[in-house]
């Protein structure tokens, strides 16, 4: 929620982005 401290929000955002990148790189549909 909006009360999430900024440091955790940034960590979370980075974690989710990296996770998406990892998934794309292992996907059989990735170019």
């Amino acid at each position, binding site marked *: *929620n909006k009360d*999430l*401290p*900024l*440091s*955790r*929000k*940034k*960590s*979370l*955002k*980075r*974690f*989710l982005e*990296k*996770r998406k990148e*990892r*998934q794309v790189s292992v996907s059989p549909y990735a170019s």
Partner: protein
Amino acid sequence: PTSSSASTSIVNDFNQDTLQQRLQGLIDTARESWTYAIFWQSSIDDYSGHSVLGWGDGYYKGEVNKPKTTQSAASLAEQQYRKRVLRELNSMISGTPAPENDAVDEEVTDTEWFFLISMTQSFANGNGLPGQAAFNNQPVWLAGSDRLLASHCERARQGQGFGLQTIVCIPSADGVIELGSTELILQNSDVMKKVRVSFDFNNGGDM
């Protein structure tokens, strides 16, 4: 674990990026195969006035040869729950509604989940693995599932339940660096030296 209302913070928007680079550098350049690195930041709790270690930042690398399933493989219901939480977190961060369909979601691994729930944890001075390392100003190195399981620290047992074999907590300026791995990594002084050099903000570091 309790949530912290601590507000005295050294991690601002600028140096969180520097911190992230150091955490990433620490495990991306390591000979050992670490799964994640976390900086537990020391601060003063607004209400109690006591020192507390809370989430500062973290870097999740994952496992090199990730098995399809682990010994503690989550049940289908648990997986659905994890995926739902991740979708909601994604929605919160992106500001767009969470999709209903989770068919395309990859499994949320045990170590990913352990890393995520770590963001909600904090430790009073002397409590838990990070709190002990800070209180005694001594590293704590637990290697081996049996040692993690036998620990009186809930975090160590929780980590073991999520497939970790090694958890290390090394005190640094203003906090504690925690490293975790699904592999057995025996104590070595190189890791501790590296942490002290990278995270000694008051002596040679530029934080």
